[in-house]
């Protein structure tokens, strides 16, 4: 079985990217795929506290908390994307590994397949 990296790149409620990324991660993991999740660029905004009910959206970010039950335990956040947006680890709603650009590229190149959702 090979490995799949999912990269989240867009703000949480720009279209369906957030929800459909969660669907993809959970479904692929259910079928036994080894999945890692990356938050890059505006994707890091998905990891902030949200009040989606105000814009009548489903709170898909709550599903990040279920990743561990699907054996999705490799979750990485781009350090540069965070700092460019004035954010730090303490702003994030789940436990993640913060990685610099070199490490990010290294990790991505270790996966057989990379899918970017924006």
């Amino acid at each position, binding site marked *: *079985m*090979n490995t*799949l990296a999912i990269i989240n790149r867009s703000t949480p409620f720009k*279209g*369906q*990217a957030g929800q*459909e990324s969660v*669907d*993809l991660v959970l*479904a*692929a993991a*259910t*079928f*036994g*795929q080894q999945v890692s999740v990356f938050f*890059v660029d505006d994707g890091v905004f998905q990891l902030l506290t949200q009040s989606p009910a105000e814009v009548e959206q489903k709170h898909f970010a709550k599903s990040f908390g279920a990743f561990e039950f699907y054996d999705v335990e490799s979750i990485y956040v781009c350090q540069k994307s965070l700092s460019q947006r004035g954010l730090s680890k303490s702003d994030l709603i789940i436990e993640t590994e913060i990685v610099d*650009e070199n490490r*990010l*590229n290294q990790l*991505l*190149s270790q996966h*057989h*397949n*990379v*899918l*970017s*959702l924006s």
Partner: protein
Amino acid sequence: MLKHLSERWGVFVLGGSNLATISIIVTSPALDSQGAYSALRFIQATIEKGHSVNGVFFYQAGVTVANGFQTVLSDELALYEKWQDLAQQHKIPLQVCVTAANRRGVISHEDAQQDKNRHDHNLVSPFQSVGIGELVAMLNESDKSIQF
């Protein structure tokens, strides 16, 4: 980072001495971006170079490629028909995520039948309505994947 990936790809495709099996994932919309057309051209070029494509998986806005109700003026590119031809000519499975498709009004006959208010459907062969399991299977039977 994307530059890094595309460089790797450029080398891989143009080098072409080792033949590979490639999976294609389309997440960009049928008309409102270049992606779906690029995917089509990429697949044609890939096959011409002797590689094989073991499937195309349509996800996110990519599912709109499978909308059989697309109607264009006769002097414009008929993208939908190009995909039909490609699938027929090279026997490439065109798989569409059912959930992403239903969200965007792309509905198979089977799904339409479950809803008595729905009288028509627009997801037809060679496109197939499938689950994410098919994507996982496809990715595990190929050497490389590329997303458009």
